[in-house]
């Protein structure tokens, strides 16, 4: 391969005068983490509500849950981000649309909310399946004690279901972080975006992408380790989850 490797490129100043190329990548990494966590919080909140709706006996609740999941699952994330970013401001009343368009950090908020809602459908499916996998008697026991439906979910069903779905939730969290790279298309310069600009400025394409790759691998290791730790600290003695 006649490619001119230059690993010291990371310590050379990047255009823009804010530091070296390495700093540039680090700021991208930081934005990736911020966007990912913000989106994950949104995904967890909406996913929990919708996931619960999918398990209620009410037909209306079921249909709301069904429609939500199908809506967010059947469109590419990229298209959804375009809808939030380019289309929504045009459909709103003029002044609102203008406010949206002029909002500072619009790509960040759009990405966090758009990815959060996209992932909420997947969290909802996981949680719904987790709740459905619990023995029917658990819900009956909670009901028989006099707990209301809301209390039954709050104190009995959800604490168990969330423990059961910890492993799939870990990979959905990682998916959320990975999906932030799609926001490069609406101008969010996160990790992949910074690697891409580094490649454009310096022409050291493989160094740039290698560095980004290593950083994504590190994120994965940290998240997987952290979640395993959390899983272990929440484990119930003697109770085999998934049984």
């Amino acid at each position: 391969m006649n490619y001119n490797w230059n690993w010291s490129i990371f310590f050379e100043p990047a255009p823009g005068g804010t530091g070296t190329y390495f700093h540039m990548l680090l700021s991208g990494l930081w934005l990736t983490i911020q966007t990912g966590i913000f989106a994950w919080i949104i995904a967890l909140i909406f996913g929990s509500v919708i996931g619960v709706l999918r398990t209620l006996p009410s037909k209306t609740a079921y249909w709301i849950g069904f429609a939500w999941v199908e809506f967010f699952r059947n469109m590419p994330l990229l298209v959804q981000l375009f809808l939030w970013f380019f289309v929504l401001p045009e459909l709103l009343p003029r002044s609102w649309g203008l406010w949206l368009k002029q909002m500072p950090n619009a790509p960040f908020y759009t990405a966090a909310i758009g990815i959060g809602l996209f992932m909420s459908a997947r969290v909802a499916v996981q949680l719904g399946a987790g709740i459905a996998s619990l023995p029917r008697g658990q819900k009956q026991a909670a009901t028989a004690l006099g707990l209301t439906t809301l209390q039954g979910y709050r104190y009995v069903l959800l604490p168990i279901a969330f423990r059961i779905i910890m492993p799939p939730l870990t990979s959905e969290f990682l998916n959320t972080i990975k999906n932030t790279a799609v926001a490069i298309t609406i101008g969010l310069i996160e990790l992949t975006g910074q690697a891409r600009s580094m490649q454009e400025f310096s022409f050291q394409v493989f160094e740039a992408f290698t560095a980004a790759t290593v950083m994504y691998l590190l994120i994965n290791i940290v998240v997987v380790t952290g979640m395993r730790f959390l899983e272990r600290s929440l484990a119930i003695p003697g109770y085999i989850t998934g049984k």
Partner: protein
Amino acid sequence: MFANFDFDVIRRSLGYLFLDGMAFTLTLTGLSALGGIIFGTLIALMRLSGFKVLGRIAGLYVDFMRSLPLVLVIFWFYFLVPYVGQWLTGASRPISVGAFTSALVTFIMFEAAYFSEIMRAGIQSISKGQPAAANALGMTYAQTMRYVVLPQAFRNMLPVLLTQTIVLFQDTSLVYVLSMPDFLGAASKVAQRDGRLVEMYLFAAVVYFTISCAASFAVRRLQARISIVR
């Protein structure tokens, strides 16, 4: 609010959107799924082969691919494939392979990691008695896999493989980052040329939604039929 919409822009560009854009998307989806399933099955077989080193390599490959955002992988291959081509052909300069080939290689390599996990689960779900029975008939390992285990695993996992293909269909829209003329790329080109972002992106959303919904509905029907037969 739809008063000053120009829906005619969609009608005018239908030919370009579907005959060029959607054709690109569907071809890319179909070939990537085919290649991804074949390569993914090989990876799954490596992981289950019992050869430690081989299994380890395959496992690392899967974990590695699944740790990276698809967008980054698309960039990687876009720049890497010309060099690999040069190395393979012994040419004196990086060869240009074209947008489609580059995208196809990317998606096959990337999706294979996901397909391999599905095939691995499928192979593991076959009862141990099946390969034992095949061995008792005098079949070799390759014959056992080819005629007994893989057909069953593939059949059991068909709904999951197809669902993953629907995800792949949606994922192909990401070639947008390389300005490739897939369905979304075509819609975006028209949108920018005519200044009709709202109409074109809404239309693209509706088309993706309709196709994905119809496809997942069909998969659900198939799943119901398979589970009845079994």
